[in-house]
């Protein structure tokens, strides 16, 4: 008879299905993207700190910082940063709504999930239209 208990014994019991079994739903995808954008903002905080350090250092170094922002790579990073910030912000609002105990029926879950994605794209577009027009 097989040993099924005791120290160091892992009986071969069936496991509950894991993530890859399920077809992705929008709230699942937005949930993990919220975490990924959070991690990206974590790294991006270095960019914010660099900006402040550059401003506090002096005109030469600040202009050097700006020259980085002005490259195509710098602009791509800033565009990405904007969307990541907006997405995490909209996802945060969605989670705060859920924290209040509201919005748990399936239709509202879908609306909130798609809505936060749409809002993040819209807000990013608005910010960069302002940028393209030379600031506010």
């Amino acid at each position: 008879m097989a040993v099924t208990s005791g120290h160091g014994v892992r009986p071969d019991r069936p496991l509950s299905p894991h993530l890859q079994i399920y077809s992705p739903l929008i709230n699942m995808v937005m949930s993990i993207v919220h975490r990924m954008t959070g991690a990206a903002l974590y790294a991006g905080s270095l960019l914010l700190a660099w900006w402040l350090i550059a401003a506090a250092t002096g005109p030469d170094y600040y202009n050097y910082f700006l020259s980085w922002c002005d490259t195509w790579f710098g602009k791509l990073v800033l565009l990405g940063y904007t969307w990541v910030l907006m997405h995490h912000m909209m996802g945060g609002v969605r989670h705060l709504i859920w924290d209040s105990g509201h919005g748990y029926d399936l239709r509202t879950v879908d609306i909130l999930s798609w809505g936060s994605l749409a809002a993040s794209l819209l807000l990013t577009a608005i910010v960069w239209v302002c940028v393209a027009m030379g600031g506010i």
Partner: protein
Amino acid sequence: MTSMRTPLKKVRYLGSAKEGADHFWKQRVTAVANIFLGVFLVWLIASLLGADYATVKQKLGHPLIAVALLGLVVSGTVHMRIGMQTIIEDYVHDEGLKVAALVLNTFFAVFVALASLFSILKLSFGA
């Protein structure tokens, strides 16, 4: 020596570590603050586009702007530190590696906070 007591017996009646609710609440309070401060940051950067250094220095050193930036740095670094702590605790299972990652996480957040706070204060007070 092997203890005859079960792990449950050892922890029963001790209660929780009392940190779960604190972590949850801190994350929400800083989240709400970050909504306002994040919008402020985007506005600030958009308003500084194309500005020369003197203008930038003057604007960042303005008391109201500086106070909002200080708030953003404090709220933001607290939020990101406990957020990353949750990610580490979810995915890093080796105890030694986890403790090391949690310490590095704190160091990183404190570094970003101190560097940013010092810069803001220097822009406000410095020559």
